[in-house]
């Protein structure tokens, strides 16, 4: 594959989009209020869309442009909408009351994770150096932050957000490295993610029905201790 030659404004835009991506991810960790988190998550999806858009613009690729629309629709529209619906059905709890690790510690962890992501990603950047690949560390950092959210958040919806952060990060990494991994796979992945979220949404509803709560900390029925 030919290295992508990118114009300086496009590169700058790409940087902005990537920065937004990281910022929104950090904000998700920062905030506790679920509606706010969902709004930030929407922004995150839009930032991802923007990132793909910049890439499409930089490469003058119509195909990628179409993908951009798809990404914006799914990541910025459909998924946040699904989440909002799930939150609406998730009962009165609207705040991440007591995360497994408190917010301050989480933020410090985020800092460490970002550092880790950046240092891990050095070979990724070095291989085929370009403005796009230079943003890959951000994508990796978003993945790790998403994982952190998954590990530390108790509310079903926040865990879903964490899962989607991971997914967004991977998508971003995919586009930043090689502009996608083949259409069939791409669509398959998107479908899988969507279905997974749907399944989780249904399950979240069942959790509320059977446990009467949406606190994942309550899920201790199956254990050996």
């Amino acid at each position, binding site marked *: 594959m030919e290295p992508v030659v990118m114009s300086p404004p496009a590169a700058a835009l790409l940087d902005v989009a990537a920065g937004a991506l990281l910022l929104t991810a950090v904000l998700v960790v920062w905030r506790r209020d679920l509606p706010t988190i969902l709004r930030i998550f929407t922004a995150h999806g839009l930032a991802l869309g923007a990132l793909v858009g910049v890439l499409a613009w930089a490469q003058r690729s119509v195909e990628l442009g179409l993908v951009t629309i798809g990404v914006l629709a799914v990541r910025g529209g459909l998924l946040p909408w699904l989440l909002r619906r799930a939150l609406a059905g998730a009962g009165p709890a609207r705040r991440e009351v007591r995360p497994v690790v408190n917010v301050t510690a989480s933020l410090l962890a985020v800092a460490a994770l970002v550092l880790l992501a950046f240092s891990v990603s050095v*070979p990724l950047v070095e291989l085929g150096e370009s403005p796009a690949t230079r943003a890959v560390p951000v994508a*990796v950092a978003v993945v790790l932050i998403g994982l952190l959210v998954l590990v530390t958040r108790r509310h079903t919806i926040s865990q879903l957000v964490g899962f989607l952060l991971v997914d967004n990060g991977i998508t971003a990494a995919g586009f930043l490295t090689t502009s996608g*991994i083949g259409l069939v*796979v791409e669509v398959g992945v998107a479908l*899988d993610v969507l279905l*997974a979220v749907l399944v*989780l949404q249904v*399950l979240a509803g069942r959790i509320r029905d059977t446990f009467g709560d949406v606190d994942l900390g309550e899920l201790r*029925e199956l254990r*050996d201790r």
Partner: protein
Amino acid sequence: MTTPTLAALAIAPIAVPALTAAGCAVAGRRTAAAAGIGCAAAVLAVAAGLGAHVVAGGPVEVAGLRVDALSAFMLVVIGAVAMVAAIAAPAHVAAEVDAGRLAPSTARRQGVLVHAFLAAMAIAVLAADLGVLWVAVEATTIVTAFLVGQGRTRGAVEAAWKYVVICSTGIALALLGLVLLNHAAAHAPPGTGGHGLDWAGLVTAAPGLDPGVTRIAVVLLVLGFGAKAGLAPLHAWLPDAHSQAPAPVSALMSGVLLAVSFSAILRVKVIADAALGPGFVRALLLGAALVSLAVAASLLLAQRDYKRMLAYSSIEHMGLLALGAGIGGAAATAAVLLHVLGHGLVKSVAFVGAGRIAQLTGTSRIDRVRGLVATQPGLAAATGLAVLALLGLPPFSLFASEFAIVRAGLAGDGPAAGWAVVVALGLVVVIGAAMLRHTGRMLLGPAPDGPGAAAAPRRLPRSTAVAMAAGLLAAAVLGVTAGPLAELITHAARTLTGAP
């Protein structure tokens, strides 16, 4: 064979279950049962045909699918285990429906989902493209999620949530790995390989892949597919899911799904070995193997639930597979493949047995089940033999495969594999002791007093008995002679050790 015939054959393992799934949605229970068995038989027959063809003529690529010895072998595994599950399922479902624990509509949905699950696994083993493989593996999660959560009890819902979250997260890591691998492939020296994530192309291109990127990719892939394969550290969904799913589904999940995911790791390993040398993946796999075994041992020692016991035993066996794969080489890889088949058969028998025990006693706690040999001789004998087979006793094929893994580890170059094998064997002994203790408590001793035990019929339902006997017999025969499968396994092992 002509190309269209081949294409039809290659698509059949996907199409037949898919059609059966559709059929189950409309058919009656009896028809669905017959269709299930027919579907498994078809998969098995097609696998045999493909296997013969591949052994004779090498791998073929057709219709976006790639049939090589490994995929043919994995199809055999899928078909064989599906057969056991399919024979046993109707009686299990009937008993559940009779007991009022299962609505008929849910039973029907179970038929649909199980066959969709089979189709997804068939895609996973036949996919030419690693991306498609990934999509299929993730699809199995989605399909089985509702099978796990079918009971709608607190436990079932909880298990389903954990299952989906942990597996999806793990598999997402694998996706990131694929993305990075794609990145590395894209920057491979021109002319060395194919395109994108096509496995054969990647294998050809592997020596030219950037080691730095490939390392990260491989770590993520092993971790990710390892989660789905039940390897530590992302193993924890497994006992919950397997203990909550209906017994035939547990049999399929434990017997095949784990193995299918593991075959993905095997495929990744081919690329990684070529790109990074054998040491890197070996270290990862040996580590995963030992941690998995240690986890299994720790949790089996004081286990209180027999379904979970079987689940942890699956983790143990996945650890053994990882051990064998980590040791590498044709002999160990062949052993790993045989182990996959043997474990699939025996574990499905064990889960079918456990399902029956649960139906009879109404509990899955070990200490509430007593004197099964006295009350249920057939069931107890089959379950006991299955557990003994799981511990690697002859004549079951697990003995041969474990032996060959150990032999390869101790004969191999470098002491790391040898020591890993010795430590692993120590853990295996602990696991064996724990499982024997728990199983012995359930099976042996005088018949318990009380009305419940006497009321149940002494004999197993015929179909359940046939399923269990067939599974055990197949595993035993495999332990004495693998027949034509030996050839297929040799070819598959050769495929996985760098000669596609």
